[in-house]
């Protein structure tokens, strides 16, 4: 079961279209014929066991990995060929924070602001939003894990991406920080989102559409209301 495109008006193009996506690492097929369509502005939750292929899927959408077969379209642009056109609109928050450890949070964000052509003021704004303004001048290396995660959130949303790729975004964040980052990466950010989580209940609450990955295959694609306990149990069995 997957969303259907209703009209061809440009702003109604689905944000993400995957058709028969295959990705191998060496001989192992990590994603096998995954198909799903995500409308603009919607949130797709990707669930699955460790090693199911969630991060791999996100890295393909982020143009960091090439698909081996199948069609991948982001905002109508085919990947990997049109990766360049897509990058300005992507924000990736992965397992790694992707920050230079010896630079401060402010310096790291300043670098990214320059790469994305974003005004420097925006750096202060996002630092403020995650309550890291005061600690913004310490090298990332010396911060606690949760503080680093907050900075990683800042990096991912600095350029106001239209598509957020969130790989366990709340890992290491305290409950209060979870609230702080909500305007940046939550539903209220307005962006199309793809998120993974190992907390199915929380993920279902956030999602418009759920993709269950099992050994790289789509076990189910359906709205959260359609996901019941037996399905989840089978997914994690």
């Amino acid at each position, binding site marked *: 079961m997957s969303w259907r495109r209703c009209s061809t008006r440009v702003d109604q193009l689905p944000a993400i279209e995957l058709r028969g996506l295959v990705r191998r690492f*060496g*001989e192992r*097929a990590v994603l096998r014929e995954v198909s799903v369509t995500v409308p603009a502005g919607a949130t797709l939750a990707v669930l699955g066991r460790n090693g199911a292929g969630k991060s791999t899927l996100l890295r393909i959408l982020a143009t960091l990995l090439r698909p081996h077969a199948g069609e991948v379209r982001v905002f109508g642009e085919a990947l990997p060929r049109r990766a360049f056109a897509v990058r300005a609109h992507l924000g990736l928050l992965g397992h790694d924070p992707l920050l230079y450890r010896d630079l401060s949070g402010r310096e790291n964000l300043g670098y990214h602001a320059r790469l994305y052509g974003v005004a420097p003021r925006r750096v202060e704004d996002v630092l403020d939003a995650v309550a890291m303004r005061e600690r913004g001048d310490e090298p990332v290396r010396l911060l606690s894990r949760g503080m680093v995660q907050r900075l990683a959130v800042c990096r991912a949303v600095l350029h106001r991406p239209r598509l957020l790729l969130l790989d366990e975004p709340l890992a290491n964040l305290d409950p209060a920080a979870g609230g702080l980052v909500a305007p940046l990466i939550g539903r209220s950010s307005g962006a199309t989102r793809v998120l993974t989580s190992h907390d199915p209940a929380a993920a279902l609450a956030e999602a418009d559409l759920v993709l269950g990955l099992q050994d790289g295959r789509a076990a189910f694609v359906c709205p959260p209301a359609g996901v019941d306990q037996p399905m989840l149990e089978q997914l994690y069995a």
Partner: protein
Amino acid sequence: MTTYGRGLRGLAIATVVTITVALALVFFYAPLDADQGFVQKIFYLHVPLAITALCGFVFGGALGAMYLRTGEARWDIRSYVAIHLALIFGVGVLLTGAIWAKASWGHWWIWSDPTLTSFLIVMLLFATYQPLRFSIEDRDRQSRYASVFAVVAGAFVPLNFIAVRAAQAYVHPRVLTLAGGNLPGSMRLVFVVSLLGIALLYVTLWKYEMAAKNTRMQVRALRRALLGDDAVSSLKRSAAPS
């Protein structure tokens, strides 16, 4: 799918014939060198090997460029085989060169031969091709990086030659020059036949190896199609694409 096996037999026969003729010429026709005597005859092996190997390296670079243009894995495999064969020939060049030097000048190594010296440098560079490949896991990236290396190193071969030639204030015995500009006519004939034989050998081996790799790949693809992904055992970590 290209069938590398086609024409392989004819090519193999031509190779054997040419090399036999070349050997006969070397031993029974080519004149004995006035200064160096019998050992000079290794020249008919050494220099053709060197020329073939250098051309093999450049050939590998061209194939690598084709990979970068097309992104098709087979170009990378062709480049790999071309470079690997050239490496094997290159070992032969260094060995025959050393033997020749020892016999003629009493040293295992001489710097005054620009063929040998540039060859050493080229070999030192290409000796890193395999380790480089070997230390990259991702197959796409492996192909891409190996091809970039092949292109850069292929361009390096002629430049290196220019630099080394220029550094040689004097060139030792003129017999060693590649073009054979001042070889006696009979020597030149033998040399050309030898070169042809070695070059044919290279081409034959290249085609043979490609045919073998191709077959192996097809077998794996068939097994995968018939028995499913997981039935095909993971390749052991290997630098050799197949």
